[in-house]
């Protein structure tokens, strides 16, 4: 595996705010690399420097061996970009947009095939202004892939999509990766990163907190278990609170939520059984990337609770 993107000590300031303080990471060929962090962490600025849209104040960036500032013309041929909130003229039709943008590239992908893959064929004569949010997003992804890029940078890929469209888009991105395109995914949506990314960089306040696989990150945080159930009859909290494996007990209406270490489940069930209490609708959750994020930055990734 070779690095297709290398970012070293990137620094970028706007007026008097430091957007990116000191960021370094490397993206390997063929992987889906996630850049995660709360709003304002510096994610978008970082990828804009990679795309050559912004000039870094310090540090070095190499994309496919190119300097994003000096080798702009060559970079645009080989790097596909999907920007956050970028539109098209309202009266431009889907097929016209794909045909036009494919004419910009040296080795364009077959735009009709791409239109099929993205499920836009029946919208080919629809104006951009009349497309739904999901359709606009898919068109935007298609435009990013039109030049047969070796690397694609996708910023807030599924923001604003309904859950079904979001899952469809994830499948699509996996398909693109399987064809050999390296993907950089900017997101504040943890479930997305967990599902798609081979590795993620957690960014907070313009710095890289950690770079690892989603699973390893979740493991690093020993959040233990969260046990949730309906007790068949009311019981005194002290029954469970005394257990060394249990750290907290919360009542949410009829539901009891117990958190504790890896052995908490066994201990809790035994005590309840001894007292002839049945734990109905029992659910056990392991720590997720979301918990890792919270533990590492002390903050929730904005918006990840939605959906």
């Amino acid at each position: 595996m070779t690095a297709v993107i290398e970012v070293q000590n990137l620094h970028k300031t706007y007026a008097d705010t430091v957007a990116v303080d000191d960021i370094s990471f490397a993206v390997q060929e063929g992987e889906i690399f996630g850049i995660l962090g709360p709003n304002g962490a510096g994610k978008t600025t970082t990828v804009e420097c990679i795309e050559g849209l912004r000039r870094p104040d310090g540090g070095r960036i190499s994309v496919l061996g190119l300097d994003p500032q000096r080798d702009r013309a060559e970079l645009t041929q080989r790097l596909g970009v999907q920007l956050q909130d970028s539109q098209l003229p309202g009266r431009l039709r889907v097929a016209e947009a794909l045909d036009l943008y494919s004419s910009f590239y040296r080795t364009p992908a077959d735009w009709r095939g791409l239109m099929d893959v993205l499920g836009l064929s029946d919208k080919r004569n629809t104006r951009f202004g009349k497309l739904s949010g999901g359709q606009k997003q898919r068109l935007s992804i298609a435009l990013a892939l039109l030049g047969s890029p070796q690397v694609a940078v996708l910023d807030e890929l599924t923001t604003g999509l309904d859950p079904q469209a979001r899952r469809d888009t994830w499948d699509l991105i996996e398909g693109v990766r399987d064809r050999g395109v390296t993907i950089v995914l900017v997101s504040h949506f943890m479930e997305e990163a967990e599902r798609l990314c081979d590795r993620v960089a957690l960014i907070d306040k313009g710095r890289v907190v950690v770079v690892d696989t989603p699973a390893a990150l979740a493991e690093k945080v020993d959040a233990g278990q969260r046990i949730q159930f309906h007790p068949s009859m009311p019981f005194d909290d002290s029954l469970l609170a005394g257990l060394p494996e249990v750290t907290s007990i919360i009542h949410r209406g009829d539901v009891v939520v117990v958190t504790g270490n890896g052995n908490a489940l066994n201990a809790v069930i035994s005590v309840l059984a001894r007292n002839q209490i049945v734990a109905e609708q029992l659910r056990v959750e392991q720590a997720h990337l979301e918990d890792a994020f919270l533990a590492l930055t002390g903050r929730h990734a904005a918006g990840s609770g939605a959906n």
Partner: protein
Amino acid sequence: MSVITAPPPARARQSALRRLTVAESRLFLRERVGPIWGIALPMLLLVIFGAIPSFSKPQASFGGYTTLDIYVPILIAMMLGLLSLVALPMVLAGYREKGILRRLQTTPAGPARVLSAQLLINLAAATVTVILLLAVARLGYSVPLPRQLAGFALAALLAAAALMSIGLLVAAIAPTGRTAQVIGSLLFYPLMFFSGLWLPIPSMPAALQHISHATPLGAAWVAMSTAATGSWPHALPLLTMAAYAVVFGAVAAKLFRWE
């Protein structure tokens, strides 16, 4: 490493500027703003003015020319004003607002080409309108064609350059398409006043005439009507328009942002 590999269609080999110009022309027609203001409105005014009998009678105060003779260059100035000050900035600032210029920045085509395409389209629309206006005025209302045709063309071209430079500056400073439209309209009315739309320049008091000559559309009217009556336009109005084009063009180029 292509996503879906297929031989590029032959058409894809055409230059990006040409393809963008074709696509933008289609949008220009679909948006309807340009065709209505830049072509239909001046033609409609010509037909209305042509239907007024007194407009076709020679006027002593106009040196023996008819009111319609005086108004044909004014309608050309108005058309240039509407296209350059309102339609062009509205589209360009709107493209910036919607992130279209920014998206183009990430492609090999780049945003400068869409700007060039827009200038070409507005210039082409202006040319079509000038030819239509002159032809309809000649055939329908016996307004003679400009006797000094080359001088007339040069005057019209410099007027277009001056106005489009001002339009580009409006596009440069307006944050949204809507604001560009408002700023453009605010500029359009006083500039049209000095071109003589409401009171032809020969009928203005001397002080107003002097001011008019210093404005781009006033200078445009002076140069075009001189050429229409058979002499080469004077250097002063031509240089005035050229100066507007250079100064506003330079400031616009300095201030224009893609995002």
